[in-house]
């Protein structure tokens, strides 16, 4: 028994390590994770199929929310995003494409979830919200995402956002005041509070009819299938 003890300890640690990786990647529903974990080690493990998580409601976010599409659309998509996060920037054109493809059947909401690790995340969220106070949230949202690489490397991104404000025809002086306003801060706070209540911890986190979509399913091809599934479930698929 004594001779076997070190091997038992080693195997125990191996088991806990593999178990925790499988548990973590599966609880985050990662099929990709499962495959790569297999490559990096010779341990065989089943590849978990990513699926939607059960629906959550959460507390209310900022009202009125920034939305696109009819309020009675059968599929409601809600994104919690950070303007500085690279995958959020990559998700932006995907979502635009989905909106184009599904038209009136899709209702999209964007919620602010600026991460503390991003230097410009809060100024960017504030700029989008300030544009929203002049009715041009989505215009600013698109510009900020599309030019992510231009402003994220700057020391101070605010002048760039002011440039965007001018570009989309906002009252720039009002925009500058609004960026620092309590109202904008409050909106971001409320969105973040909603995010936390729905268990959001990273970006982008996207919900489809209140069910969290695993990050691996956010590429256009898999997202399209998910939207079609929801449409079918709602009985409005042609």
């Amino acid at each position: 028994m004594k001779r076997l003890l070190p091997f038992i300890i080693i195997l125990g640690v191996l088991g806990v390590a593999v178990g925790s990786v499988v548990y973590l990647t599966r609880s985050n529903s990662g099929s990709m994770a499962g495959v790569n974990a297999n490559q990096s080690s010779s341990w065989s493990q089943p590849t978990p199929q990513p699926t939607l998580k059960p629906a959550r409601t959460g507390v209310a976010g900022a009202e009125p929310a920034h939305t696109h599409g009819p309020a009675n659309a059968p599929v409601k998509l809600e994104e919690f995003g950070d303007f500085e996060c690279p995958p959020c920037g990559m998700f932006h054109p995907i979502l635009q494409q989905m909106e184009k493809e599904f038209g009136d059947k899709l209702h999209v909401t964007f919620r602010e979830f600026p991460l503390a690790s991003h230097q410009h995340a809060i100024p960017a969220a504030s700029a989008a919200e300030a544009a929203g106070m002049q009715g041009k949230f989505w215009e600013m949202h698109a510009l900020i995402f599309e030019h992510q690489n231009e402003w994220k490397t700057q020391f101070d991104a605010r002048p760039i956002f002011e440039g965007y404000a001018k570009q989309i025809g906002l009252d720039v002086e009002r925009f500058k005041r609004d960026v620092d306003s309590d109202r904008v801060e409050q909106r971001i706070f409320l969105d973040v509070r909603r995010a936390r209540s729905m268990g959001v911890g990273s970006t982008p986190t996207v919900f489809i009819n209140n069910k969290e979509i695993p990050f691996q399913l956010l590429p256009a091809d898999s997202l399209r299938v998910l939207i079609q599934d929801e449409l079918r479930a709602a009985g409005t698929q042609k």
Partner: protein
Amino acid sequence: MIRTKWPYALAALLSLAGLADSLYLTVEHLEGRSVPCSVTGGCEEVLTSSYAVIAGIPLAAVGAAAYFSVFSLATLAIFGYRTAGILLRPLVAVMVLMSLWLFYLQAFVIRAFCQFCLLSAAITIGLMIVVLLAWKKGI
């Protein structure tokens, strides 16, 4: 037994911390999301950089394998397998060199630090000290 082999016991504990750290980084790397790491920022720059992967394998997973090997060898050394203690020396030496290289990349090439990667480097330096102690004690 533990009393005379304490450097190896310490090495085993350190490698467990390193294992947990690198497994966390592996999971984060595979998830690919932006993680809120606020102490030094920079995690996603580092974890999504081209240096985070070697031949399709996430570096963090290589690190996890290395820490697991250290743990196994240190455990065997505690139980009197002398060869295991000797094998620990070149392994930890390679890990120290790798850590130095990664530190250089973070400081001068990627220009972003990721605190969990720095923690791993600190653990590796700790392992080096412990293994040198064991060597000196001749155990």
